[in-house]
């Protein structure tokens, strides 16, 4: 980090915003020679409230669905000018803009092989417009469009496997990260930018407003998601799993009880079991559990 801040204070994120932390770490790891395309979402709204901007790098917003397409155009223009090698292009979006609205533009970008890092800030609902359910909202979450009540336990569908979808395009780098692991975000961004071709990164960012937790618990909540196995931190290079954060799994209740959006689950053992199953499947699938030898050392 130099003295020049690429992401200035004075933006209008809520106190304790996980996305604000992650976005700053991403741009600082990428450095000043970066062009950002941003689609609509919390990040766009709180950093660039017209006529103000928190960014100190070129930054473009067009529409909700097409930040990947805009970034593709930027990359093609830089290539034509012969400047691509010295300039990074980052496309960034929220979870709705990635998994629902912007999926076709993202798929096109990955398929055409543009040299772009796509960063999805996954706060697990449309927070900007008032906590509506998105494709990346986890199972049994209470949101305004999937309310929990006597007949329902919240969101009825599991989280969309976006890292796997990106991976299926055969791209060179796919990673998930979390706002609870600050150095992990910076390491993965630096690594991604050293690789040529389309890269996809998904960062789990707690939202104190939408998840209903205290603003000073952002880090704790993000870490608990990883430690329970509900949000595995994985890293794929050229289709092979090269890195994962190993954990000594905690019961999912520890993560769920920190947040208001899961409060209805705590006296519902049947649903709790289903959520625990999702975590157990993740742990088994990626081999997240620490080996007994490693844990004793």
């Amino acid at each position, binding site marked *: 980090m130099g003295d020049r801040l690429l992401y200035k*204070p*004075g933006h209008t994120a*809520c106190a304790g915003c996980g996305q604000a932390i992650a976005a700053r770490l991403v741009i600082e790891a990428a450095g000043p020679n970066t062009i950002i395309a941003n689609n609509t979402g919390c990040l766009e709204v709180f950093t660039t409230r017209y006529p103000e901007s928190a960014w100190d790098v070129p930054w473009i917003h067009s529409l909700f669905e097409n930040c990947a397409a805009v970034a593709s155009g930027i990359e093609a223009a830089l290539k034509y000018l012969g400047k691509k090698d010295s300039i990074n292009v980052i496309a960034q979006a929220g979870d709705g803009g990635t998994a629902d609205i912007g999926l076709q533009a993202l798929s096109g970008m990955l398929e055409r092989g543009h040299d772009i890092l796509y960063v999805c800030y996954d706060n697990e609902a449309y927070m900007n417009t008032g906590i509506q359910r998105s494709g990346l909202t986890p199972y049994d979450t209470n949101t305004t469009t999937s309310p929990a009540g006597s007949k329902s336990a919240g969101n009825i569908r599991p989280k969309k496997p976006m890292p796997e979808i990106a991976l299926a395009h055969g791209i060179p780098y796919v990673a998930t990260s979390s706002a609870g692991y600050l150095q992990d975000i910076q390491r993965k961004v630096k690594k991604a930018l050293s690789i040529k071709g389309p890269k996809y990164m998904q960062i789990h960012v707690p939202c*104190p407003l939408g998840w209903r937790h205290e603003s000073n618990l952002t880090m704790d909540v993000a870490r608990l998601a990883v430690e329970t196995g509900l949000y595995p931190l994985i890293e794929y290079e050229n289709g092979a799993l090269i890195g994962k954060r190993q954990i000594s799994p905690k019961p999912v209740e520890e993560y769920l009880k920190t947040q208001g959006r899961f409060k209805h689950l705590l006296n519902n053992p049947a649903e709790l079991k289903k959520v625990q199953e999702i975590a157990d499947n993740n742990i088994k699938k990626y081999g997240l559990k620490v080996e007994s030898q490693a844990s004793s050392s």
Partner: protein
Amino acid sequence: MFGPLIVKPQKSKGDNTGAWRIQSRPKFLQKDCIACRMCLLVCPEHCISGKEKNTYQTDYNYCKGCGLCARICPKKDIEMVEESSGDKQ
């Protein structure tokens, strides 16, 4: 209002979001600081600055009082104090 709306970079500096603090503010005790920079890394506002041990300080013009820095400090060298306590800095 037609065509691209172009804004000068860094213009958000004019927004003093410190007025958002309602309950408490972080107080940097500057006693046991080991300059691990975790408070600087975690601040969503990016308004904490400092280089050497015991020099870290926040800019109250922007600090929204979320309390993340006090929570993450491994030495408990940052504490949240009541906004109304009249305790400057």
